[in-house]
């Protein structure tokens, strides 16, 4: 940037500094974003580190210790096979976060490809959006149940099924914001200059849809965790001995009136994780939306 002389660079430096300051103020002004982020990171760290912290096998059964209430030895008590609930909770977090994360990433990738092409090519738009309408018309969990009943239960099939469920809504969001970006003068300028379609789509339009996409990704992450829990609860999710929050809740279905901790612990984990992700999503939306000013309440 040698053609910018010292004077303007000092001015732009000041502008950048001010923008950074403003951004920092806005970030600090939305407590939801910070709380959500911190909560999610804590769960993530615990899930990643658990094999290094504890050598206890999450599936090891100690039948004498079955249904022990929380005490010094087992912080959160044990389940009906005498397995330590705290350890299982952490391993469950690995499964739930893995499923949720994969679903969020895959449905965003598919959704972006579908949405961005639909926004740009008329004929494709009609076909793809009708398919999305049809898929959205089928209640999510039911579609997932049907797909898993067909494919068989495994964690990959849960991921595939939930990705199919959530892709259409991502595609719609991406298409809607890509339609706005497409009308911008700079896209038109690029067209006039003879840019290829692919270059316009991926270099010019894609950056414009990233921020609504990240917001939606966090919501889908949260939704996928709830859906995985519901699917496992119905017996159409992660296959049995593996620990996932849904499996733990399903197992507690038979014993929770005698041993409520077997339900409360995984239940609280689901709620905390989903709540953090929702707060994160809400915070991100407010933070990235230029219409809401820093500090001002909506």
């Amino acid at each position, binding site marked *: 940037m040698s053609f910018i002389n010292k004077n303007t660079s000092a001015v732009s430096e000041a502008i950048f500094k001010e923008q950074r300051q403003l951004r920092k103020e806005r970030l600090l002004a939305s407590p939801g974003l910070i709380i959500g982020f911190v909560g999610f990171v804590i769960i993530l760290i615990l899930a990643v580190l658990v094999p290094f912290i504890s050598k206890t096998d999450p599936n090891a059964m100690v039948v004498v210790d079955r249904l022990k209430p929380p005490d010094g030895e087992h912080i959160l008590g044990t389940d009906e096979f005498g397995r330590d609930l705290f350890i299982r909770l952490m391993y469950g977090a690995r499964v739930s976060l893995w499923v949720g994360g994969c679903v969020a990433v895959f449905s965003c990738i598919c959704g972006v490809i579908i949405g961005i092409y639909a926004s740009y090519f008329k004929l494709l738009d009609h076909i793809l959006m009708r398919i999305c309408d049809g898929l959205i018309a089928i209640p999510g969990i039911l579609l997932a149940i*049907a797909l898993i*009943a067909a494919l068989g239960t495994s964690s990959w099939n849960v991921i595939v099924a939930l990705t199919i469920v959530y892709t259409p809504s991502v595609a719609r969001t991406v298409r809607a914001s890509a339609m706005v970006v497409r009308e911008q003068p700079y896209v038109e300028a690029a067209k006039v200059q003879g840019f290829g379609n692919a270059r316009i789509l991926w270099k010019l339009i894609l950056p414009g849809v990233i921020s609504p996409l990240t917001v939606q990704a966090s919501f889908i992450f949260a939704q996928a965790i709830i859906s995985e829990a*519901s699917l496992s609860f*119905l*017996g159409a999710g992660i296959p049995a001995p593996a620990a996932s929050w849904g499996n733990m809740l399903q197992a507690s279905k038979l014993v*929770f009136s005698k041993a409520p901790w077997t339900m409360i612990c995984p239940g609280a984990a689901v709620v905390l994780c989903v709540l953090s992700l929702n707060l994160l999503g809400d915070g991100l939306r407010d933070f990235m939306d230029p219409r809401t000013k820093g500090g001002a309440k909506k």
Partner: protein
Amino acid sequence: MLSYIVKRVLSLIPVLFVVSCVVFLVVYLIPGGPATALLGMEATPMQIEELNTELGFNRPFLVQYADWFRGIFRGDWGDSFFLHQSVLEAIGEYFLPTLSLAVFAQIFALLLSIPVGILAAYRRGTALDVAAVSISLLGAALPGFLLSMFLMLFFGVYHQWFPVAGYAGLAEGLGEHLKYLFVPALSLGIVQAAYITRMTRSSLLETLYKNYIRTARSKGLKEHKVVLRYALKNAAPAILTAVGQSFGSLITGTIVTETIFNIPGIGMLTIGAINRRDVFVIQGVVLFVTLLYVLVNLVVDVLYGFVDPRLQPGRR
């Protein structure tokens, strides 16, 4: 008005076509054909081959689809492999408890969410608003079945005000019917209310700052009239749409909740079908619930076509 309804109905055709394709594909795409799922692990390849042929699975794709599609209209939705009845009969038998539960849950949801949403929007920024918003945030993070378990523990096990689980049909009297449905309907209603409260609040907030509201106030109308007659009426379509769209999650929530309370509804039918991989029943349930969901949204749209004068003919 009529043209609006016709247009709305016509727009459903592509949607329903895609739905039918997806639902058909669910069974068609099973690796090895539906017989592999129905017969389970122990079946010999010979048996699988035989059943697949019997089910007509070896015919070309389009022939199968056309045949299946015609069957849907003729009321032939296939047969359950394990229940020894047709899928439609099974759905008919199990549907009433689900409908009843969904209706009561919706009533609870509306009774809770509309007043709270209105108050929260009207008293924006007060402690009441903050409480309503935080509770509805929590409700959005709560899977319905978890709340069901909590309430079951509280109402059924600790206090024994209501039966822990089970079901009594309407034939045994409304009181008995309600006694069994109260806790499941309440737990579903609360989760549902979380969403509708937020939608009520935000759509009412949008209308409360419009110019005609200021006009209504400045000409001296009573506050409750301004809010309920002017603001709420204009916010109503958005709220109605939210109610219609949340019907899908209501019915899936019902399915999960039923399995906790042992209510013999579509949920029990589904969970049995999952365990036995009775794919035709699952296919039928998905198709049935989707049709119901689409129909409810159609009714909602047509309803506010009547309510909303902006959609009436001669006003464009």
